């Protein structure tokens, strides 16, 4: 049918681009149901497909990757202190290095390095220790004095007369940033092409259980039978675990970030400071991207308090006087699931066929391919992959915590 309406000037838009994945309808049952269509759920789907497991659904209560995946500041690094963390984060970084090829999709991964500033003698000692630990784990790491810091990032204020003078920094050259949306879309596209159903607008509201097994998930679009359940719900994990009656040491907090207006390229790397409490990079388009720590109280509202932003800006201007005249363009928040030792919780639950992946808190974007890979292997073989075995729920009973507060403090 043709219409004779005259098109108003400016209304002749290009065709909407083809969708990158199928927007699937729920089937009656699947071998694997992944709850949560953020980065981790989608990456898990992709690596399950690579293992030949494609009778899989990713169920997402909102739109694809509209949670923390859409809200994070995309810092990727692996310079954590402990061997357990080095294992999973470095595995992820190696996968990032080949991910564009694997997905056949651009993700704008830019390895521009990260400086973690030290401002006190204790900071210096902790940082040097972390550099040595990183080297022992085969992770690129260097200790830089203030002059060397200024060479890597000329706009950092390394003068001695500021409140917290820069005493040096650790540097991981292979760290970087990527385009978070493209990463999610790349994983979704490959998973969907392999036959996996991505079901948006489908909230899990309960579970059908039979003894120590879950036989189905109740959703706003009907019940879906399942062989195995893989939980990837990040900040909402407690809500799901409460439905199963499984306690976990998680607290959901607002985590905010902000961007400036677009600027000329001024900032060549990533700078983080735990003591002054801010981190900054410059995105590909030119906006300065900044973040800091969580808002102190529990909250699921995807918004935080403005005084947190104000403090973050004060810290940024102290370290980067050149930012004083930049304008804040917008700020936003996600809901992050924080654990007592700042390490994730991954592995078994009291239900035989339910596996848990949560607790990445403020820093799980960098882990996306690594955890997707290890979690898929875990689901496929019905036991925790060695890389994630140290991160089980049982560590809070055995006391074998993986305390990464030092390396993870100012969020990521």
């Amino acid at each position: 049918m043709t219409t004779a309406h005259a098109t108003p000037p400016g209304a002749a838009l290009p065709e909407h681009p083809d969708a990158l994945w199928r927007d699937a309808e729920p089937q009656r049952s699947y071998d694997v149901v992944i709850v949560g269509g953020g980065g981790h759920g989608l990456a898990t789907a992709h690596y399950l497909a690579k293992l030949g497991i494609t009778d899989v659904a990713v169920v997402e209560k909102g739109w694809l990757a509209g949670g923390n995946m859409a809200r994070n500041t995309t810092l990727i690094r692996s310079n954590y202190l402990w061997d357990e963390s080095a294992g999973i984060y470095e595995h992820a970084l190696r996968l990032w290095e080949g991910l564009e090829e694997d997905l056949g999709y651009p993700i704008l991964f830019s390895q521009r390095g990260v400086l973690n500033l030290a401002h006190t003698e204790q900071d210096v000692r902790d940082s040097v220790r972390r550099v040595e630990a990183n080297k022992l784990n085969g992770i690129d790491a260097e200790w830089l004095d203030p002059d060397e810091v200024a060479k890597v990032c000329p706009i950092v204020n390394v003068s001695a007369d500021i409140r917290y003078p820069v005493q040096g920094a650790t540097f991981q050259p292979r760290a970087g940033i990527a385009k978070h949306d493209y990463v999610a879309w790349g994983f979704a596209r490959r998973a969907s092409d392999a036959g996996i159903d991505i079901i948006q607008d489908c909230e899990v509201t309960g579970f059908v259980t039979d003894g120590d097994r879950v036989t189905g998930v109740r959703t706003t679009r009907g019940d879906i039978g399942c062989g195995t359940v893989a939980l990837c719900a990040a900040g909402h994990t407690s809500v799901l675990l409460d439905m199963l009656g499984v306690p976990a040491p998680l607290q959901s907090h607002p985590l905010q970030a902000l961007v400036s207006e677009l600027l000329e390229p001024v900032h060549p790397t990533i700078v983080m400071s735990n003591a002054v409490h801010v981190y900054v990079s410059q995105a590909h388009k030119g906006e300065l991207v900044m973040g800091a720590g969580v808002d102190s109280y529990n909250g699921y509202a995807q918004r935080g308090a403005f005084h947190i932003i104000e403090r973050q800006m004060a810290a940024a201007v102290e370290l980067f006087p050149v930012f004083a005249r930049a304008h804040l363009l917008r700020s936003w928040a996600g809901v992050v699931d924080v654990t007592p030792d700042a390490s994730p919780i991954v592995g078994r639950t009291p239900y035989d066929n339910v596996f848990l992946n949560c607790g990445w808190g403020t820093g799980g974007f960098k882990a996306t391919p690594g955890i997707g890979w290890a979690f898929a292997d875990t689901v496929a073989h019905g036991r925790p992959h060695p890389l994630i075995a140290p991160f089980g729920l049982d560590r809070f009973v055995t006391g074998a915590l993986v305390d990464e507060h030092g390396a993870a403090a100012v969020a990521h």
Partner: protein
Amino acid sequence: MQLIACPWCGPREELEFSYGGQAHVAYPADPAGLTDEQWARYVFFRDNPKGPFAERWAHSAGCRRWFTAVRDTRTHQFVSVGPLAGSEATP
């Protein structure tokens, strides 16, 4: 920034307060009798509801007293505040 109604000082700006997490977590009556599992629960596990939550707050830049509040974690809005013992603040 929201105003928080300190039971002693009245409404004050949020940044005067510090957060103390879940309220009514009692120290174990018989600490020596606890299993590792029970200790883990006491030390590390706290409720994390999406909805009303009874929690401790301290007016640290004001009267420096602790109190109990019920706050809705979906909206961050305070539902009620009461003094520390505050059984009236239990949801």
